[in-house]
């Protein structure tokens, strides 16, 4: 579904992402982990096409990632939700539905808003919403087109416990529908039981790319070891 090969992204002379490669297949939920400044957001923004790659290739369902065919296949939920101040919650979903040509979006939008407790806020302008609510709207916008690939950059930040639980449930449902998810997060416990696969970035390089179970096995730890402990183990400075 998503194929990244030899991706390098530099900001002037600073290498933010250094020759990384990975492939995500249908139904994969992969966690993109790493310390601050490791290059997680840059990787996702480059896949989305917001940033230009310096070298390498990115394809989404065999289409170059910036092509319209590729963009029809994925959605993106950014780290800091920036909405149109003067559009209401409902109009945001309407706009996304038109942009992605979502047929009969009203029912889907209503269900999403209800799941995230936003139905009573549907006529509120974005500028009147709190940061957490904006994040929920942003997630709903990302979920509405029901694409094959979902790119989430720190989706849980600012969410209330119920919305975190809802998001996790949705991840599971999407995975069951053979949808692919790449999620970058620091809240390791929130994705611990969701991700089948973990990509750990450090200083722009992928230092771990393996199934969660395999990672636990290789590090010689038992089932009770948490993702947090594994993460700290692999990112520990030598």
């Amino acid at each position, binding site marked *: 579904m998503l194929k990244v090969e030899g991706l390098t992204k530099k900001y002037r002379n600073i290498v933010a992402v250094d020759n990384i490669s990975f492939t995500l297949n249908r139904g994969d939920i992969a966690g993109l982990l790493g310390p601050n400044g490791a290059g997680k957001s840059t990787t996702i923004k480059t896949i989305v096409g*917001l940033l230009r790659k310096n070298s390498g290739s990115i394809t989404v369902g065999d289409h170059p990632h910036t092509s319209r065919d590729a963009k029809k296949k994925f959605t993106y939920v950014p780290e800091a939700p920036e909405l149109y101040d003067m559009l209401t919650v409902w*109009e*945001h979903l309407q*706009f996304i539905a038109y942009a992605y040509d979502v047929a009969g979006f009203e029912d889907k939008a209503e269900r999403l808003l209800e799941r995230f407790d936003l139905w009573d806020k549907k006529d509120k302008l*974005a500028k009147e919403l709190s940061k957490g609510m904006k994040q929920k709207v942003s997630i709903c916008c990302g979920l509405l087109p029901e694409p094959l690939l979902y790119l989430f950059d720190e989706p849980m930040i600012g969410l209330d416990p119920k919305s975190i639980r809802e998001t996790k449930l949705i991840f599971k449902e999407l995975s069951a529908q053979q949808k692919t998810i790449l999620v970058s997060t620091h809240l390791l416990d929130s994705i611990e039981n969701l991700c089948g696969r973990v990509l750990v970035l450090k200083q722009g390089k992928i230092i771990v790319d393996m199934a969660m179970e395999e990672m636990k096995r290789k590090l010689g730890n038992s089932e009770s070891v948490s993702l947090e402990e594994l993460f700290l183990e692999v990112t520990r400075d030598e």
Partner: protein
Amino acid sequence: MNEFRLLARRDGWIMANYFLEIKHNPKRLGVYFLYLLWIGALVFNMVARYRNPTEIQAQLGSQIIGAGFTGLAAAFFLYSLYHSTLESSTFFTMGDLHLLFPTPVSPKKVLLYSMVKQSLSHIFLYSFFILALMPLILNITKVNLQHFPFLYLGFISLLLVVAPLNFLVFAIGSKYGLHRRLQQAVLALIAVFTLYLAWSIIASGDLWQGLLQGLNAPWLCYLPVIGWGKVVFMTAVTGYSAWSTIGLVLQFLFLAGCIILSYRTADDYYEDTLKATAQRALRRKQRAGIGKKRGFSPTFSRKNLSIPKMGSGPWAFLWRSKVEYSRSDFHPYLGFWALIFLLAGIAVGIFAAKGAGGLTAVYTTNGIIAYIIFFFSASNATQHELAKPYIFLIPASNLLKIVGSNLADILRMSANILALNIPLGILLKVPLPTIIIMIVFGVSFYILNLGANFLTRIIFRNTLDQKALYPLFLMLQVLLLLLPGAVVGGVLAFLFQNPALVFAGIAVVNIIIIGILLLLSNKLFARLEWT
């Protein structure tokens, strides 16, 4: 859905929501009414001050307007062009970045739509500038109001071209890796233009005459954008000719060319616009009083600093200011602006020394500085600190916190005003007491404005109200804080027939008001909230 229709629909919703917001919150209409009053005042001023200059006055005035237009247009155009080699212009919002850019909508169509939309909105918005400029133009020369549309279009065409041209230059630079070469080319253009002006001045043997001749040279009219714009602009002053229409058509062809070329070149421009869009969003927040704002300083950014502790509690604010200014300027208190004020003082001093009105120049210059402070200090140190929680959290008396957080800015402004007045005093042989009055006037005016910002924050707690009711702020500031000083100063000057006493009166009243504000600081501070 058709992509242009999608974008138009989104803007339709936004527009409708603005009207709905006014319906739900009719006090916003009051703001628009104030703007209308302001426009009305401009038009009234234009009509009331219209006088028929003599032929000689009109001819000289026409030369001044022509040279002024060319000079300002060239400076603006070349600066924008240089800036475009460093950073792209933007037509987008943060919402576009996060919601629109990742969608399957064609980036080219997004760009074309946004460029045309911005151009159309600017045609309307910039009309206020022209209205504001008209009284000045009418005072200098004769204007044929029948050809007023040319004057407007000449001005607007210049402004409209800049953003698409900047975008195009940056896009070409990014696409073909030519940023450095383009930068060198623009610098060469700037050097050629500067040398040309220098040559004109030397050839004529007189600064003003040289500038007037150089900037009114007929060949300049053939230059794209600057020259063509001037031909169109000057139609209302010098009369209509076939060139007026040709210039107008050429300007709009150039604009269309820029937009079409941008459309064809830019297929992967999203990254280029990220920084400019984020900065635009930040400026909007700053205007609403919720973002960090620091004075413009085109200097450097030093990383390794070692600023010693300046005391505890509220003096941490002073230390922080010192670190920030040391990082971004020549010196924490003597910055880039002190240099500009010094140069302005020397320049005004030299020119005024040639004429007769030495003291008038001192009064006018200080009056202009006060006017600028009044309009541009609306969000500064106080807003900057109030936008963060620390001023509410650090344990110290409110009075000291206010002093600590504003002291660096006050010292910097004092240095600027000293730098302006010392050369004025020396070159124009102004009596020392007058110069001292001017310095106290400027500094007290600045401090009073800091206090005024503080008060507006208390009166209008909602940042949206602060933004929307900005004209009302200014009026309140004038009524509550500036008018008493002006009245006292005016009465003193009338009684003793000494214009310097206007400034002395204002300074004394300012100091009294500042004292009262500081005395009441505990009560005022208690009404503040961190938003």
